């Protein structure tokens, strides 16, 4: 499976990572190498095998429907790169 630079550009956009031409060229090679190596999974017979999504089977746990958390706006504000009047501030995102 060979991955071209256009595909690298597409997934880099999906992952919101800026890349330069040189990076895309290098990444196309590296990622293709990794994917080529991963191809060998095709040799494994997985007919009627259920995919494993968790390491250990366990029942789902749950929480009570009671308010036990919140009130950390100040802590959030302290960590935020930009914060004003109680809000996180980001570049304009108008639709």
């Amino acid at each position: 499976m060979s991955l071209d630079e256009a595909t690298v550009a597409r997934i880099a956009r999906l992952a919101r990572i800026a890349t330069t031409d040189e990076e895309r060229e290098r990444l196309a090679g590296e990622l293709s190498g990794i994917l080529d190596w991963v191809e060998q999974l095709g040799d494994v017979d997985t007919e009627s095998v259920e995919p494993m999504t968790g390491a250990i089977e366990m029942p789902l746990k749950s929480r009570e429907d009671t308010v036990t958390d919140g009130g950390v706006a100040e802590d959030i504000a302290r960590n935020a790169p930009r914060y004003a009047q109680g809000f996180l501030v980001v570049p304009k995102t108008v639709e």
Partner: protein
Amino acid sequence: MAATIEGATGVWEYAIGLEVHAQIVSNAKLFSGASTAFGAEPNANVSPIDAGMPGMLPVINMACIEQAVKTGLAIDGAVNAHSVFDRKNYFYPDLPQGYQISQYKQPVVSGGHLEIELEDGGTRRIGVERLHVEQDAGKSLHDRDPSSSHVDLNRSGVGLMEIVSHPDLRSPEEAATYVRKLRTILRYAGTCDGNMQEGSLRVDVNVSVRRPGGALGVRCEIKNLNSIRFLRRAIEVEASRQVGVLEAGGEIEQETRLFDVGRNVTRPMRGKEEAHDYRYFPDPDLPPLRLDRAWIDRIAASMPELPDARRARFMRDYGLSAYDAGVLVAEKENADFYEAAAEGRDKKLAANWVISELFGQLNKAGRTVDESPVGAAALGELIDLVADGAISGRIAKDVFAWMFETGKGAAAIVEEKGLRQVTDAGAIGAEIDGVMEREAAKVAEYRAGKHKLFGFFVGQVMRASGGKANPKAVNDILRAKLGG
């Protein structure tokens, strides 16, 4: 109620499917212990989980799942014993984790349907494809600053039910009726407050058009409609846009569009060149959701009465017309009010009072039944005064208007204004004698055979009594005296 669109080249039909996002009624969020309360200070109801802080993990609030199961049962859906939470990956400032926890391939409820009442009195069954549970995002505010947007995460992580219909709806009106009906069911089930203004109920609509009987056309999705009026308008505008494109020989591109209320058009969402690729995969932080059959059965056994059942009961047990029953059950509070007011009384009479007098006054005042100055017990007292013959129905309407205005009780107003009906035969006879004396000529005409003058005499007597005379007594005594 199916509507058609008259194009330049002929007739087109609507095919409409709805995705309704209904906020689950719960104290805490779907995966965190933060409050769901509306209207808090920005970022006050946020836990580190809802803010996407590093290392934070979701733990499910089963009360939210119970609400989804209830809703699923209310629309006759199949509750799946095994369902899965997936991550839907995309970047947006109000999505702090960089993904939304949702259900993709294995929702908690599959299938279902609801009956919508048509204008012609009939009903139509609209299929529901699925109901799944997911997290709400935060809120981005764009009008606080010219160059930046402000993000409030209070909604982030609140539990939502997404209820997806089949493309079974055939007109903007049907779509509106569907949303109203679904909202009614949700409110009866107590699983969503249905408040569209606060965003507790939001609608995305898929619209396509086709030639009558033809295959489904390519659809466009219009996102985030927050009123039924806009929903209807958006569908109309989008369908006629599509007809225009198709009749000009063009093709409809499957895309997401926004409804521009001001300009009354739909337009493509910005940045559509980036085809969405949500990269769904099972959330490794959450094992599959396995529901015990006995648990589901217990919920089924504890379901409240739903609107269709209540409507049927009102018709069957109370003898109400389909129309009246439908009007009463549309809002749970109205039906509750009616049942309280009608308790131990004539059900039809009570229905008339609630529908014509109470709803009429409420409408004029722009109030809901919960804000009515006349409570169910007070209305019941008024109905009793009429039934007992203490006041006439005519007077009662005036009394009701006074009650609505002043909040006073019916009996108090009747006493205060001296409106109690006169049933004493002597007193009524005296009034009749007075009238017969004044109108001797008409009495003679009557006695000569002009019997249609009877109504005239009744009116005169009633006026003379200030409307308080008991009409039946007036009739009886008058007939006897005129006949004499």
